C-alpha cells in the first residue's frame, strides 16, 4: 500500500485537521465528532442540510460544506458510515430552527446509523427529514437486495437542494425537491483499478491488466461484470445506455450531465470521456442543460469514472446555477 499517511487509524482525523487548516474562513471542524461545519452555522431560520458517510469519497461530503450547499458533513472511517453520535452532534450544531434535512446514500449502514440519529434528534425536539439517494443502475432494485446504491446523484442533489435551502425554502419543500432530484437521476460507474482501504492495506479487488469492472460501486464493491478493457467510446456507451434506458429519457428532454472521476483517473481522460458522453447524448437527441466534469465522488485512488444523468426541470437548473461557495464547488457571486 502506497499512501501519504501516518497511522492508518488516524487518517480521517488528520485529514480533517488539514482541511480545517486549509479553509479557516469557510469551515469549522469538530475533530471529536469528525464533523465539517459551515463556519457560520447554525444559520438562523434556514433549513440545514446534513450529509455524511464513509470517508474516502472526497470532496464528497466535507468539501461540499459551505454557503449554498451543506451545513455539515459527518465523516465516518474510510468506507464506513458515520455513527449516530456524530450525526446527532451535526444535526444539533446546525439546526437553525427550521429543521434539518439528512441526505443519506443508500447503504445499509448509512441508512441505519442516520435512522438512529434521527430518532435521537427527534426526541430532543429537532425536526428531521431524511432523503435516501439510490441512483446506481448497476444494482438491481428488487425486494431481494438492499436496493440501488446512492452514488453520483448525491453531489447534484446536495448542490440543488442546498441552493433551495439557502433561498429560504422550508423543510418539506427541500425534502420534496430532494426526492424529486433523486428520482430523476441515475448513474453507472466503471473501474480500471481497485482502491486500497488504508486499514486493509491491500487492494479491495483484483483486475487483470486488460480488464475493467463494469458497474463498480464507490467502495470498490464489484459490479455487474468483469470485462475486457475497451476503448473510451465503448465504455461511454456501456455507461450512458443503461442510464438513459433506466431513466427512460426521451428525445428532446434536457439533463444535467455529470462525468465523475473515481479519484485515480486524470482529468485529461475525464474530459475525453465527457466528449464521448456528449456525443451519445447528441445522438439520442438529449440536450445537456448543464454539465460537471471532475473528481467529485471518489473511491480513494481507484481509476475509473461514472456517468450521472439528471432529468433537469427549469427549477433544478436555476438552483444549479445559484451561487455556491464550498471547497469542492464554487461559483456565482
Amino acid at each position, binding site marked *: 500500500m502506497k499512501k501519504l499517511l501516518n497511522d492508518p*487509524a488516524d487518517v480521517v482525523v488528520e485529514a480533517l485537521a488539514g482541511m480545517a487548516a486549509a479553509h479557516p474562513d469557510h469551515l469549522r471542524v469538530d475533530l471529536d465528532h469528525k464533523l465539517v461545519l459551515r463556519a457560520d452555522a447554525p444559520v438562523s431560520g434556514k433549513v440545514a442540510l446534513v450529509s455524511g458517510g*464513509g470517508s474516502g469519497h472526497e470532496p464528497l461530503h466535507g468539501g461540499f460544506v459551505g454557503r449554498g450547499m451543506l451545513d455539515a458533513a459527518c465523516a*465516518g*472511517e*474510510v*468506507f*464506513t*458510515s*458515520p*455513527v*449516530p*453520535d456524530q450525526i446527532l452532534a451535526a444535526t444539533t450544531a446546525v439546526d437553525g430552527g427550521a429543521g434539518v434535512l439528512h441526505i443519506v446514500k443508500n*447503504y*445499509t*449502514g448509512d441508512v*441505519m*446509523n442516520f*435512522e*438512529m440519529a434521527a430518532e435521537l434528534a427527534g426526541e430532543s425536539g429537532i425536526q428531521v427529514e431524511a432523503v435516501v439517494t439510490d441512483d446506481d443502475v*448497476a*444494482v*438491481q432494485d428488487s425486494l*431481494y*437486495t*438492499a436496493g440501488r*446504491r446512492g452514488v453520483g446523484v448525491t453531489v447534484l442533489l446536495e448542490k440543488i437542494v442546498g441552493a433551495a435551502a439557502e433561498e429560504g425554502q422550508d423543510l418539506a419543500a427541500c425534502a420534496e425537491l430532494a426526492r424529486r432530484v433523486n428520482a430523476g437521476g441515475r448513474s453507472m460507474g466503471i473501474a480500471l483499478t481497485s482502491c486500497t*482501504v488504508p*486499514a*486493509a492495506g*491491500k487492494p*479491495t*479487488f483484483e483486475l487483470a491488466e486488460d480488464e475493467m469492472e463494469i458497474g463498480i*460501486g464507490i*467502495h*470498490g*464493491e*464489484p459490479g455487474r461484470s468483469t470485462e475486457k478493457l475497451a476503448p473510451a467510446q465503448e465504455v461511454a456507451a456501456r455507461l450512458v445506455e443503461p442510464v438513459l434506458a433506466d431513466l427512460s429519457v426521451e428525445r428532446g428532454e434536457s439533463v444535467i450531465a455529470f462525468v465523475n472521476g473515481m479519484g485515480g483517473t486524470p482529468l485529461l481522460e475525464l474530459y475525453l470521456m465527457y466528449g464521448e458522453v456528449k456525443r451519445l447524448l447528441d445522438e439520442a437527441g438529449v440536450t445537456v442543460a448543464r454539465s460537471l466534469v471532475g473528481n467529485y465522488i471518489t473511491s480513494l485512488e481507484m481509476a475509473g469514472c461514472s456517468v450521472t444523468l439528471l432529468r433537469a426541470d427549469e427549477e433544478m437548473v436555476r438552483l444549479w446555477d445559484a451561487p455556491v461557495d464550498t471547497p469542492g464547488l464554487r461559483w456565482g457571486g
Partner: protein
Amino acid sequence: MADLTAFQSWITTCATAIADRADDLTELDRAIGDADHGSNMKRGMSACAQLAEQEDFSSIDAYLKKVGMTLVSTVGGASGPLYGTFFLRLAGPLAASEQVGAHEFGQALRAGVEGIVARGKAELGDKTMYDALSPALDAFEEAAGAGSDLADALQAAARAAAEGRDATEPMVARKGRASYLGERSVGHQDPGATSATLLVEAAAQTLT
C-alpha cells in the same frame, strides 16, 4: 450462573478473539463487501473491553447497555447499529439480575436477536449475521428447555452458530453490501456471520 464479572470477561474474551481475527474478517469483507468489517469490529470491541476499567458498573444490564451504546458509537457501518442493538436489547430481560442462569439468558438472547431483525430486516438465508445467530438461539433454547445449564446451552449455541456461519458460504446475499453482488456472492463466507460466531463462542467460554 453468570455474574457481572463473567459478562465482563465475555466481552474482553470476545474483543481478543475479534482482534486476533480482524484481518480474516476484513479479508472476508474484501471479497463481498468493502474490506472494513475487521477494523470496524476491532475498533468497537476494543472500546468495549476498556469499559470495565474506566467505570464501575452496578449491574449486568447497565454494563450491557453501555456495551451496546459503545458499539453503536464506535463501529459504524451496518454492523455497528446491529450489534449495538443486540446488546441494548440483551440488557432488557436481565434488568436487576445479579446472577444469570440459562432461562434468563435465553430470554435475553431472544430479545437481542430479535433486535437485530427489527433493525436490519434480515431473513434466514439472506447471508448475514442472522444466519449464525438464529440457529444459535434455537439451539440454546432447545438445550435450555431440555434442562441444560447456561454453560452447556451456550456450548450447543456455539456449535450451531459455527454451522450457521459455514452454511452462509453457498448463499446468495440479499441484505447489506454483499447483496449488490447477487450470484457473485456465492462461495464466500459472510463476515458478519463469522464475527457473530466469535461472539457466541466467547460467551460459551466465559458465561458459566
